[in-house]
């Protein structure tokens, strides 16, 4: 079961054959700004810029935060991504002091899209889809690479020059200052923050989860101090062939992520889940990075409201769903948490409301879950329940 989801998504993504942009050995274009660090062959990894054969402002192509608010369709998003050509070179993760990596850092700290020129060893080919990172277009080894001069984001620049600031503190600072997640994650992945000697390249997919869980854990520390909400609440959101329901419980923090993939490949109905009780989670989640990204998005909303709650998050992905990376979960859950919520007296009525919105019977979710199942069997009372007896 632990590898069930990975195997399923591999099968799903390997079937994604879509025409990506056709470019030659030489490419004259722009980077949104965008970089990609692979995890294959770690610690000597394929790192490089992503460049589109376009000019002008193309920041939207690598800014998942804007896609849902700007109502971009799945086709728009895939179109952006498959236009991004990934240039790559093998780089040791600690080998930051060379002009190639410096250019990557330059790109990551940039405020705007950057005119770029690249020469590849051969014509870039293929495309890449994955459950964790956002898809991208063809790739090839890069031989020559030049960019125009770059104007850095001031906050990112400060962090870059502060070689005493720990990477985790830098991530939190930037997040508190409202810097978009994808910018923080990019700078994190190219070793542009952290204590001087410990800076290194971090593969893109790992850097996403590292940033999500760093921010999530810190938010949780404050949320634990807040008062528990009074009733059950349901937040929901649907986009990109997905439906999300977040049920908040009047309890101390506990969290479960339950996701169903329905008829995406064929006739399959698969459910995966993972959870943590109030003491937290040991080890990496069996469902992957989406677990941490959803947790972060829910905690973000709780911290903003100054409340504490437990959270059960249900997701259904339908036919037509294309894995676009964990941003899909982050932005959908964030959007859900920004909607008005419905309030319920007890868990049963909250769940029966959600039942009317999901396609699978609720009992399938309950059967697969740990925490939800447990909550339905017995409930934790409080001492207040015994005061007037």
């Amino acid at each position: 079961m632990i590898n069930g989801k990975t195997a399923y998504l591999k099968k799903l993504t390997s079937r994604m054959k879509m025409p990506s942009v056709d470019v030659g050995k030489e490419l004259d274009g722009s980077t949104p700004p965008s970089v990609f660090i692979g995890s294959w062959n770690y610690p000597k990894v394929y790192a490089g810029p992503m460049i589109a054969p376009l000019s002008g402002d193309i920041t939207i192509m690598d800014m998942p935060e804007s896609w849902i608010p700007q109502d971009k369709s799945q086709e728009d998003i895939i179109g952006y991504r498959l236009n991004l050509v990934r240039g790559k070179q093998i780089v040791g993760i600690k080998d930051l002091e060379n002009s190639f990596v410096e250019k990557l850092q330059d790109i990551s700290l940039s405020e705007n899209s950057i005119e770029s020129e690249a020469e590849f060893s051969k014509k870039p080919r293929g495309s890449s889809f994955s459950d964790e990172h956002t898809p991208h277009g063809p790739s090839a080894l890069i031989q020559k690479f030049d960019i125009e001069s770059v104007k850095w984001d001031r906050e990112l620049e400060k962090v870059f020059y502060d070689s005493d600031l720990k990477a985790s503190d830098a991530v939190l600072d930037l997040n508190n200052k409202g810097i978009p997640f994808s910018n923080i994650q990019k700078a994190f992945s190219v070793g542009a923050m952290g204590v001087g000697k410990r800076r290194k390249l971090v593969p893109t997919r790992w850097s996403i989860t590292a940033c999500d869980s760093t921010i999530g854990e810190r938010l949780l520390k404050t949320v634990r101090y807040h008062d528990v909400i009074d009733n059950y609440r349901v937040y929901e959101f649907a986009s990109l062939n997905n439906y999300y329901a977040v049920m908040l419980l009047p309890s101390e923090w506990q969290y479960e992520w339950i996701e169903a993939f329905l008829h995406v490949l064929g006739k399959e109905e698969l459910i995966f889940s993972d959870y943590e009780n109030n003491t937290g989670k040991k080890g990496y989640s069996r469902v992957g990075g989406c677990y941490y990204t959803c947790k972060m998005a829910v905690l973000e909303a709780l911290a903003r409201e100054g409340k504490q709650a437990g959270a059960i998050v249900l997701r259904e992905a339908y036919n037509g769903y294309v894995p676009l990376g964990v941003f899909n979960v982050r932005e959908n859950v964030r959007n859900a948490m920004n909607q008005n919520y419905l309030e319920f007296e007890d868990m049963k009525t909250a769940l029966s409301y959600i039942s009317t919105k999901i396609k699978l019977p609720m009992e399938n979710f309950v059967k697969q879950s740990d925490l939800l199942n447990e909550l339905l069997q017995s409930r934790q009372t409080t001492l207040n329940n015994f005061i007037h007896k």
Partner: protein
Amino acid sequence: MFKAVLSDSNVLKTSFEAISSIVDEVQMKADSDGLRLDALDRSHITFVHLELKSALFDVYSCDEPLKINVDTEELMKVLKRAKSDDVVELTVDEGNLILTFEDEARRTFKIRLIDIEYEAPSPPDLDYPSIFEIPFSLLKNSIQDIGIVSDKISLMVDEDKFIASAEGEFGDAKIEYLHGEKITENAKSVFSLEKIKEMLKADRFSDTAVLSLGNDMPLNLAMKMISDEGELSFLLAPRIESEE
């Protein structure tokens, strides 16, 4: 002037091991009778009560009643630095709780007092059908045994035995102990293992634990010093099975 000297640092250390895992901030009250603390966790599941009578201390003086508000995590950090044969001295100045540990050197720590509005919680007043004593270590071991199969524990008592048990997805566990006390009414309640574990961190307070149990009622776990000079007790709300 408040001053309290204790030759055994373990009492404070073990009490706050438990207290600091239950509440983040706490108010201790000092008066001429001694030190006491009543606290309720944020989710109102666990109540803790600590009482250290003036007679327990080697030196104790307190001219006027005093409220000492501290961050329990900060206090615990300092208490962890105490060795078991250290003599501990507690005093308070403008804005600080001062802890001094003394062996071959004199080590002083100041912990900032915090500004909190603290309303001493009043726990429910409960009548228990069954009250009995068991060795603390037995309770602690039972919890660890149960932890293998489940995160819930059922505590049960009948006229002969105290039974801790759990049914897990992959197996069951059961611990039975002949308590040798006069119990006339059976009682059973289920608790979160995680919550019981927090209370049992105070494992050096006393060798015996007094348990008060009812049916679907809070657990009262009390630890008294033999000399009756100190008491640490907890009240834990149960988990209740859903009707359907």
